[in-house]
């Protein structure tokens, strides 16, 4: 047997596998065994960390969480408490409310029903003040409502302008003319007008409300665009379209300023960003701090003039006006701070409990398992 003796004559034939039984029969030098590689991965021996959940081992985690969360919570809580916020409900459901008369106003009522609400700020608002309108029980997050828009139309796409998406149905066309902007969201745009006056010794000083800068920059500059065409005349550009059913005026008459008119009207843009929850607020105006000497809004009397156009009574909605300063963490919300403090405390408490358990029974795990 040639091959046979070859296998035997070459003791090195199978040396490839150290210490291994090179198995005969393969013949020649190319001894190929099926022996699996002895690598950490294949033998499932990768260096590993094996945490064991016992009182002793997780103790530090609880204390660390507690120690981190409580200061954060206090920080957030303090910040939130420093925010000044004032809120007026002007829905007018109460008979005593000045706006009660406007309760059953309809979309197309002209002239608009107006009412004035006086209020007093107990504390002055030091920094910039944000003026919001708030709606409650208003389901802007309804599935069909959310869908009812055409983003490319709002982006200034001319073909979509004249031929809006099917999603806008039934607010897509009116009397065979395409609606611009189409859809239920646009159609139901909030159209109350709020004006703020400071009452100083019976004089009403109007407070400057800035209406620009309330929308996201990207929305104003990227997502929303007016249709393009010859010239900047929006009326011409929107030719061939009709206004949404509920609107008193077409979209190109939302504002006098050309860079806040049409689809890039910021009130419109803010409205189009549908709220997540049925109780929400939307930024309406900004009140900028004039100078460093004076607070933005001093404590004192103010009056709010409302052009009441937006009907919410039919679905038990509420309308509010909110004045609020703002911090790095947004508006006033004590929840997160309290949550952090609570969770931090619970963790700390649990840490103590576990420490006791560990102290009392925990030895067992280390010493009892190892009797010696």
């Amino acid at each position: 047997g040639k091959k046979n003796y070859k296998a035997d004559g070459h003791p090195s034939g199978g040396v490839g596998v150290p210490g291994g039984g090179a198995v005969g029969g393969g013949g020649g030098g190319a001894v190929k065994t099926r022996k699996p590689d002895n690598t950490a991965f294949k033998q499932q021996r990768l260096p590993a960390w094996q945490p064991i959940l016992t009182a002793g081992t997780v103790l530090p985690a609880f204390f660390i969480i507690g120690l981190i969360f409580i200061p954060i919570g206090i920080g957030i809580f303090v910040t939130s408490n420093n925010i000044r916020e004032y809120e007026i409900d002007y829905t007018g459901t109460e008979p005593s409310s000045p706006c009660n008369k406007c309760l059953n106003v309809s979309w197309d009522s002209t002239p608009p029903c107006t009412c004035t609400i006086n209020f007093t700020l107990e504390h002055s608002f030091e920094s910039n003040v944000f003026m919001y309108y708030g709606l409650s029980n208003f389901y802007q997050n309804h599935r069909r409502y959310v869908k009812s828009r055409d983003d490319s139309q709002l982006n200034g796409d001319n073909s979509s302008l004249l031929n809006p998406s099917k999603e806008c149905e039934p607010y897509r066309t009116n009397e065979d003319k395409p609606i611009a902007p189409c859809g239920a969201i646009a159609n139901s745009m909030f159209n109350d007008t709020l004006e703020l006056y400071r009452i100083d010794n019976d004089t009403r000083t109007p407070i400057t409300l800035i209406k620009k800068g309330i929308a996201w920059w990207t929305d104003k500059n990227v997502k929303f665009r007016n249709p393009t065409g010859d010239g900047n005349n929006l009326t011409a550009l929107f030719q061939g379209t009709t206004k949404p059913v509920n609107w008193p005026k077409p979209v190109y008459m939302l504002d006098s300023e050309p860079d806040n008119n049409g689809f890039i009207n910021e009130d419109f843009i803010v409205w189009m960003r549908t709220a997540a929850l049925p109780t929400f607020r939307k930024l309406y105006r900004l009140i900028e701090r004039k100078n460093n000497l004076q607070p933005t809004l001093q404590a004192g009397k103010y009056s709010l003039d409302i052009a009441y156009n937006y009907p919410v009574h039919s679905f038990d909605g509420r309308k509010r006006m909110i004045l609020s300063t703002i911090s790095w963490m947004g508006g006033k919300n004590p929840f997160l701070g309290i949550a952090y403090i609570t969770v931090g405390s619970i963790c700390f408490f649990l840490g103590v409990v576990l420490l006791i358990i560990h102290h009392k029974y925990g030895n067992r795990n280390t010493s009892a398992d190892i009797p010696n």
Partner: protein
Amino acid sequence: PPRRRRRKKKESKTRLVRSSLLLPEAEPEKSKRTVLACNRLKTTKYTALSFLPKNLFEQFHRLANVYFVFIALLNFVPAVNAFQPELALAPVLFILAVTAIKDLWEDYSRYLSDKEINHMECLVYSRNEKKYISRYWKEVKVGDFVQLRCNEIIPADILLLSSSDPDGLCHIETANLDGETNLKQRQVVRKFLELVKFDPLKFTSVIECEKPNNDLSRFRGYIIHKSGKKDGLFKENLLLRGCTIRNTEEVAGIVIYAGHETKALLNNNGPRYKRSKLERQMNADVLWCVLILLIMCLFSAIGHGLWVWQYGEKKKPIFDVPGPDGKYLSPVLASVYLFLTVIIVFQVLIPISLYVSIEIVKICQVYFIHQDKDLYDEETDSQLQCRALNITEDLGQVQFIFSDKTGTLTENKMVFRRCTVSGTEYSHDDNVWDGISWRYYRVLLMGTGMQKLSTEEESRNEKDITPDPRLLEKVNECAKHLEVMRSHDQPLSHLSPELCDVFDFFIALTICNTVVVTAPNQPRQKAEKIFFKFGLSVLSSTSTDSTLLKLEEKLAYSAQMNNNGYGSQQGRTAVGSAPGEGELRYEAESPDEAALVYAARAYNCSLVGRLSDQVSVELPHLGTLSFEVLHTLGFDSIRKRMSVVVRHPLTDEINVYTKGADSVVMDLLLPYDPRGKHQKKIRSKTQNYLNLYAVDGLRTLCIAKRVLSKEEYGCWLKTHLEAESSIENREELLFQSALRIEKNLHLLGATGIEDRLQDGVPETIASLRKAGLQIWVLTGDKQETAVNIAYACKLLDHDEEIITLNAESPETCAVLLEQCLQCVESKFSSNTIDEATGNMTIGFTPFYPPPSSVLSSLGLVIDGRTLAYALEPTLEDKFLALAKRCRSVLCCRSTPLQKSMVVKLVRDKLKAMTLAIGDGANDVSMIQVADVGVGISGQEGMQAVMASDFAIPRFRHLEKLLLVHGHWCYSRLANMVLYFFYKNAMFVALLFWYQFYCGFSGSSMIDQWYLIFFNLFFSSLPQLITGVLDKDVPAEVLIAVPQLYKSGQNMEEYQPHMFWMNMIDAMYQSLVCFFIPYFTYYDSEVDIFSWGTPITTIALFTIILHLAIETKTWTFLHWSSCIFSIVLFFFVALVYNASCPVCHPPSNPYWTMERLMGDPMFYFTCIISPVVALLPRYCILTLQGTLFPTQLQLGRQLSKLSPETRTQLLTKLNVKDTACQTRLFTDSFSPSLGSNASDGYKANNQSTPLPASPQTGESLFREHTKAEHKTDQTAAASHQGAVLHEENKLPTSASSLERSVGFHEVRCGTSEVESLPLGAAFPWSSAVEQADFSLLKWITSTPLFSHVGTVLQVSPSSLQNETQDSMCVLGSSLDFKGLKEQSSNNLEEKMKGTPTDHCKNDNSETTFL
């Protein structure tokens, strides 16, 4: 080109094959060209065209796929759509694509291997060129003539027509087919034998044979010559595809079956599909998920209906959008539409990727099991094979193991150990295999770096038999006599009967077999190519070098002999050949045969050649004798014997040599005896020794012969030839014919062959048993052998009570079972009283107290016949009730069918997870029936492996396979499945809570992209990694503490309530993840997706951290997968949110993520929510891990300890166990055992069946019942002794005294060892004991310390260890005494009832184990 023609006979199931070389006749096309497989191999499922439709069709058989496609299509209905329709299709398409790609890849690799095989070459005769030319395999057709050379692989099923061998023989190796490495002989068809040179062109015969079938062991047909003469064709004429030609220079034949019609391919069934237990459970939970989904949808639908309804008809709110036609939907219609919408939104609750993930995880698990080097066997160069890919986790839940014995527990390497010739025993003491020194030798060899061919090592055991000097002398003497007689022409009858028997005995050993002789100059070689994908080629030995030295000696010796010899029929002697020829090797179908032939050779009676009609035997003094073989009556399992009919060259008589199971052969001996008493004495002596051999665990065979007169032979020959030539019913006729000649035999002697236990079998069994597995051994061997092997491998313990069931009729069986059950039950009830003390002595498992329902010390032995009765529907429940109580069950003499019936019984009735392990064809049915079938790729071929789900090289590998891989696979998969449910439920619940705040309008705050891809991409990788790589407990601990395996058996990782716990946790977590952002952003200017994106992020963090809590072992892969997932999410979100300002309606999330990431609130929300969500789970797990740790958690802690302390602790845990081993060792390996047992045997045989017979003290409680032979009466059963070991205080023989004393020493030692360190182990315990009793109680309540607790509780009462020990011994003996009394009462009753029967029983020869 050669053409093949073929006609299908309509009326018969045969096929006609003609030569393809014949000129095409007029009607070639007329014969229906029904699909006749050509030799092209095609195992692929698809073609390029059919792939897509066929694969999709197959995938849609899975209900889940249909469901998801339905959901996706629902999105195309405008009224109900929730997502962009195209997007909704994406996940389904992705899943389908992944599966399709996987299928495609598998198919492609099949295609490649097909191509490789199809393009192998072989020589086919060409009509045009008038010679054999090389062709591809795929071009071979039926009717072609193929020529094959040595070591070539056979391309198709070929009828052998010519061979270069002068006798028309051809040897083939069937390793590729069935793994058997021995050579098999094939013969040229009879008529062509005479041809000097075979010329295909002159082949005009027609072959008529069976239709293609998958029976490898059968081929029938005949060849019709032009003359009209018919010749029968047998399996010996057929060369099977896939086999390799050996030892034959050149053969030629005609192709009968090609391609897929060959027997090899008809046998290839491919992998099987099984569904695991876990998967079944999971499917039930998937249904629960469906139910939950429906409830959620229904709830939402009703909620929406109410919401719409509250606004009334008139005052529709401005935010309720009417349908496209401007009309508002009625509340009812709206809720119906919404129902469909939310089904789409909530669809994720049914985990779409679950099935795909599980498949991926299982493939990876299989890969890792494959790669485990501990499951690799160097000796055979084989590793574990997973043949069923989808039941890996079943390995972790096995409750019952059904094992074959031979080849599974034992090596199936037979070593000739003892023999009896003519009533004289030759013990061959030198051959006692010394495991220790042999291993030492092996280590030495390894150490010196010698290339050790392992098989050579093995065969050394087989071959090298040191002859017994007395017998050798007799053989020499006999040969000398014969030589003298022959030289003086004396008749052989002058030889003394004993020498005559000795001579015949060795002749029988040498020639009564089917051993093939191989000379090393025709080396056997392995096919270089792995021919079949499924094939495992077991490499065999090739080396001869190491024996060269010895050979030379031998040659010198035989040369010397030959110098003295004269007149020998010098066919072929070893003298002529130079040392280079080397030693002859024997290839046998069963290892027993080879062992016998090697044994005979040790006595210088060696087989030197075997032809189809002649066997050459080389004898000392006489030279080579050639026996003309007239017939070989092969072995079959019904006759249990084989015979050869030969013409004796010295006497010219016709002799029949028979070799077979003693039970059969003993019955076939001459009924009356001319040599009278002497012969009778020999017979009974032989029987005695046979029993002894069996007690030793040896396999016994009887050798007998018969001398036929010419007339007798002639008479028999006639009928036999008839039988041989018949086609129909041939097997049956041959069987009858064999029965006619195998009678009136003369007993020559008996042999005892040892089948060594495989390495590590006792340890593995002990370890598996500690793991809570019940091990049943089902064997075809006789009871005595089986019982002894069972003792040797620790299946039965010597302090175990053995119940033996032997019944001769169903009635006795019923009575027996009833009695045993009663006994066991009464023992069980009395046992509960002193359970406390019992636990201390018996229960050394520290992790679990012995389950009270199973008596740990009970063994059941049942024989085949009784088993048949017990498996009757009326008795099976009782049998099972009894067997359940026993720690181990041993079924002897069971048929393959019975084996599978037992497995089926346990599987179905006990609803238990069963594993069957075996190596032979007789285990196939059992392997197929069991939930998990394991094959051992050993000596007996590949059939078991083919049928199995897993194939392992050795029995000991079962330990790691089950305890480590099984456990891991189970725990990984169980955790992954639970996690899947949790994950999806948690994610969907977020959407559900949102419905309360969006008027149940089916709106979702999570962007549809996130919603659809969350499962698929963002959260899938970590769970896959964990599913593949997590290790809850390290392998070393799992091996060291087998008890941990019980967690799988008890389904601890995935119990039904866990699904609901996970669901509740998911609900809680989703509430947290929903409401923290809700309150944070309440009444703020946040828009839907600026609010939904943090929720998605929080959900992702929570889900990943949840997995982190569940992950037990962290490698860099875990870390990186978690980090990758989070990074991927942010990356995708950022890219997606920046990609397009007007795309993706309705969400249009342009710049959302970018803005959020600049907002500190986002981070604060994302940090706190996961913490709150996971706090309860984390706390509960921590507290549970501290206060009530499970076994697995303790095991994990164990792995944390330093190696020294761990080993210390483990030795402490197992100290009793090792003591047991020592005890067993002293018991079973004490040299006195043999004689002791034989004493016992004799004593019993002398009909002294005293119930308290001390000799039977090996078992504590042995119940033996023997039903009567003659009268099959119901009440024939009787007890024969219930013996208590500890009670044997009155030993009659010194040896048993010695033994029992030794035993007690060990036992005392044990309890000392056990309780001393435990006392020392808890230095604080003494202080604590009185002071803080509650603490003690608490400690004892945790499972690890339950055992310790009992010790502690008792130890105050018992002053010293010794008293304690004696007390427990006392306690248990009291207990046994009670039982014994009861059973002896029983016995008395029986004896009164049937005194005569009892006496008769005493006389029956086999009375105890």
